[in-house]
């Protein structure tokens, strides 16, 4: 009988990712409803100290495999190790982050474990002892409730949606042999090119200041960068702005870009094409700044400002600086 709510913890450059604490906290909540324990799989080289952090967020046991082959992340090494330890212990539920790495790993595990997964979930609950996952589909134009009948029941969690809850448990470390076969490690990371400026990714930001066609040109995004800088947020863009070559592809929010759920989304000069609205409607608060009072974005906005964004945004930057200094 499958038992236990498991997560795969994600670490990069010597630090546990925040979304892994979101996974741990969520796993704890589900496990308490089921009366089961929470276990985390942690892979890396010299990462044992991170077990304590997982323990603080409700993890009873950390299955740790320490091997230089885990750094940097490759699908081959990580999927083989996670599949091995999961098969040996048959948990009932397995959660991962819907991050770049988590998406890659979780999908491979669906194949290795021959099960099903609800990806990029925004809510998880237990109904009659089974996991029910809620997830946006069509980039959020509708939502689906998904039941996984395979074992384990897999789900990946959209970053920034599930709360981190401190709930200290043992975080006892259990070392396991990942049994890696060097011949099976086929892909190699040749190079890691860090983005310059260390800008926050829109998928991980609590606050996004986003610009569309109304920005009129790439040189004007500096005013959004200034506001985002004061708010410690990221700068996003509409498809129109990305297709015009004003902003990099990684910043695109919408159905053919990233679907985001920040606490605050400030849409500047974005009219609100349906495919953009789909990608940001699950934001907690939306501010729209646009000269056109008929722009569809206002229908989604909690606060709308009908005015010239080039005048409003710099004033907001000044005002936020003042408020945050108080």
């Amino acid at each position, binding site marked *: 009988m499958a038992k236990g709510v498991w997560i795969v913890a994600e670490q990069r450059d010597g630090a546990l990712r925040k979304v892994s604490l979101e996974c741990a906290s969520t796993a704890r909540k589900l496990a308490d409803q089921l009366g089961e324990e929470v276990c985390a799989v942690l892979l890396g080289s010299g990462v044992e100290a991170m077990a304590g952090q997982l323990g603080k967020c409700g993890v009873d046991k950390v299955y740790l495999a320490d091997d230089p082959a885990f750094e940097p992340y490759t699908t081959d090494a990580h999927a083989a190790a996670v599949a091995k330890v999961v098969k040996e212990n048959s948990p009932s539920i397995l959660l991962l982050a819907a991050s770049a790495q988590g998406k890659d790993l979780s999908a491979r595990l669906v194949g290795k474990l021959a099960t099903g997964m609800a990806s*990029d979930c925004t809510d998880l609950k237990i109904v009659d002892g089974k996991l029910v996952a809620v997830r946006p589909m069509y980039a959020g134009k509708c939502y689906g409730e998904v039941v996984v009948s395979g074992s384990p029941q897999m789900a990946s969690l959209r970053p920034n949606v599930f709360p981190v809850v401190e709930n200290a448990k043992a975080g006892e470390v259990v070392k396991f042999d990942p049994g890696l076969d060097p011949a099976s490690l086929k892909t190699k990371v040749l190079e890691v090119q860090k983005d310059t400026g260390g800008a926050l990714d829109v998928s991980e930001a609590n606050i996004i200041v986003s610009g569309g066609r109304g920005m009129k040109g790439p040189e004007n995004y500096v005013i959004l960068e200034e506001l985002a800088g004061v708010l410690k947020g990221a700068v996003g863009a509409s498809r129109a702005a990305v297709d015009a070559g004003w902003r990099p592809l990684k910043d695109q929010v919408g159905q053919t870009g990233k679907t985001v759920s920040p606490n605050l989304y400030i849409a500047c000069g974005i009219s609100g094409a349906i495919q953009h609205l789909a990608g940001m409607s699950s934001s907690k608060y939306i501010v729209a700044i646009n000269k056109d009072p008929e722009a569809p974005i206002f229908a989604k906005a909690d606060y709308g400002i009908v005015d010239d964004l080039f005048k409003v945004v710099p004033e907001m930057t000044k005002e936020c600086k003042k408020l945050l200094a108080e």
Partner: protein
Amino acid sequence: MNIIACVKQVPDTEALIKVKPDGSGIVEEGIKWVMNPYDEFGVEEALRLKEKYGGDVTIISVGPARAMETIRTALAMGAEKGVHIDDPSLYGADAFTTATALAAAIKTLPYDIIFCGQRAIDDDSGQVGAVLAELLGIPQITIATKLEIVDKSVKVVRPVEGAQLVIQSPLPCVITAQKGLNEPRYASLPGIMKAKKKPVDVKNAAALGITADIKARVVKTVPPPARPPGKIIEGEDPAQKAATVCKLLREEAKVI
């Protein structure tokens, strides 16, 4: 090179999605169906590799009868032949079942590289490419924005949060295509005429020797949660409006 590109037919990005009153799915009437945009990048990359290295491109799709239009679109772009997997037991199937069907068809074909879109913009699952790679026992590189063949391997750029990775994999492997990989071509009129005569094999589950074993099921589809009505910020000038909204964000919304 023997190149395979998997495609899915999905509602256009501009489509309004309406949920059926009983929550059993979406209303399909009136929807314009198109090739999944991420699959288009895969088809385009497949065609570019063929043009550079020779060989042919096979298009594979799992879907109902209408999915044939999408296969023909890819053939009109320049692919040589198609496989249409059409079986009611596979409609709306999960990633594992869809990949099982694709793998069964692909195992009968020669292949050096397989393209999928990084996700389909309907169910947004983003799993099929990786599951397919696992079922074929070959490596995957997901979310590719740049690709280059080097001897008998492929070198790919893959963006992750805050960085770009350059990853190398031996062939054969599965690549999932991300926007940025290329600019897909439009089908030419002669291309569309030629596509009508190109061969497409239609196969059902029995012909592939598989049975659907769906492990993840959407049991209910609901509209997105309604947003409470918003307010338009009034004020004398931009500065006053900016001050009001910042105050509301701090005191009412408590998000800054």
